[in-house]
């Protein structure tokens, strides 16, 4: 019998190790798996690479993880969300490396990792210094930049409801990066508000099919 629901965050994060890349869902403070991400701090792993659109708000979730010194590098598009106190402080003393990626490219690179795509050409940023050192190609008279897949060792995502197979649905704009990160994580862990009976989710309306999800943990 398939039962991806695990009991507690230690089981949810089992196997995480130093140097891992974590894909952390959320846009601003919406759709972030705060409790799950904060549980990483307790594991004692370090030198993490954190992929997250923002750099966390205030001192919770991703911001707490970064503040705790667990991340060596941040890959993001906009580390200037509301209340970016943690990242500003770390960046000012160059205590963290930041790789800045256009938001659509960030998402597309993760999708490529999940989709078995070896790389792709995008126009976004091709004319800019974010393309420095990258392969450029003119296609149909327009300049494109080559971007590579961005896989994660773990995807730590937030969803609204799950069943024991790991099918997920989201609420409104809390969906954001979570489905694409689910595709790109070697191990995908979903923190959810509610666990429902198998068959209770409408099969036509499931957003993340179970195949992308390895573990489900309930928000405490």
């Amino acid at each position, binding site marked *: 019998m398939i039962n991806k629901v695990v009991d507690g965050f230690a089981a949810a994060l089992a196997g995480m190790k130093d140097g891992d890349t974590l894909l952390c869902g959320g*846009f601003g403070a919406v759709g972030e798996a705060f409790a799950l991400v904060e549980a990483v701090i307790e594991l004692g792993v370090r030198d993490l690479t954190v992929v997250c659109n923002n750099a966390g708000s205030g001192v919770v979730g991703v911001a707490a993880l970064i503040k705790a010194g667990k991340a060596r590098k941040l890959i993001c598009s*906009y580390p200037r*969300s509301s209340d970016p106190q943690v990242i500003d402080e770390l960046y000012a003393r160059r205590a963290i490396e930041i790789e*800045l990626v*256009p*938001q*659509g490219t960030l*998402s*597309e690179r993760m999708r490529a990792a999940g989709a078995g795509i070896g790389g792709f050409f995008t126009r976004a940023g091709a004319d800019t210094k974010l393309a420095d050192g990258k392969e450029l190609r003119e296609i149909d008279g327009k300049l494109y930049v080559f971007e590579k897949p961005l896989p994660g060792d773990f995807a730590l995502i937030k969803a609204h409801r799950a069943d024991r197979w790991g099918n997920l649905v989201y609420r409104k704009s809390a969906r954001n990066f979570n489905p694409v990160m689910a595709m790109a994580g070697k191990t995908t862990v979903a923190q959810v508000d509610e666990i429902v009976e198998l068959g209770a989710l409408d099969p036509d309306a499931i957003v993340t099919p179970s195949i992308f999800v390895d573990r489900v943990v309930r928000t405490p």
Partner: protein
Amino acid sequence: MTPLTRKQMAWRAAQDLRDGQYVNLGIGMPTLVSDYLPPGREIVLHSENGILGMGGAPKQGEEDRDLINAGKGLATLLPGGSFFHHNDSFLMIRGGHIDVSIMGAYEVSATGDLANWATDGDTRAPGVGGAMDLAAGAKEVRVLMEHNGKDGSQRIRQACTLPLTGKGCVTRIYTNLAVLDVTRDGIVVREMIEGLDLDALQKVTEPKLVLANDWKRIGAPVLS
């Protein structure tokens, strides 16, 4: 001569949006555009975080923490609206499905280059967000910005001095003084505020301006 207020600038940009267009509003001043959409037109607002058909701020008591706009403020959804994930959201942007993107800017060049993500000497971590995707993918990019910097510096430039967001993408600029189009013939002045003439506008604008034959005054209402 009274420059337009931020609200009047947003009002002016809103008047050009047509019924049925899909429009992305950047964070900051462009967000105000949603307050002045002309009545009778259905304009579908796209928010990069996975929303089409976004409405304005919620009434008190109807706030939903899971429904925010790109600026992270609380938002609402209109009937006909939909939610989707980030990858589909940027597929829409990059794939040319957004009719109009309205963004703020630090600088726009005479050839429509856009610089709106990095300034000199900023010590904070740089942020680019979705600006480069919008610059590359929206059918039309329009800029909403003060004509000059607070120190009087030029913001419509012969060539941008700040790091680019995209090349040759801006088609129209709304400032507190004028409405200008970026064309093959240079920057064309379409509208100016009451009391301003081309000479005065040229003095605060680096590239050579061309006055449109059918130029007119901006008739912005008083907005509080």
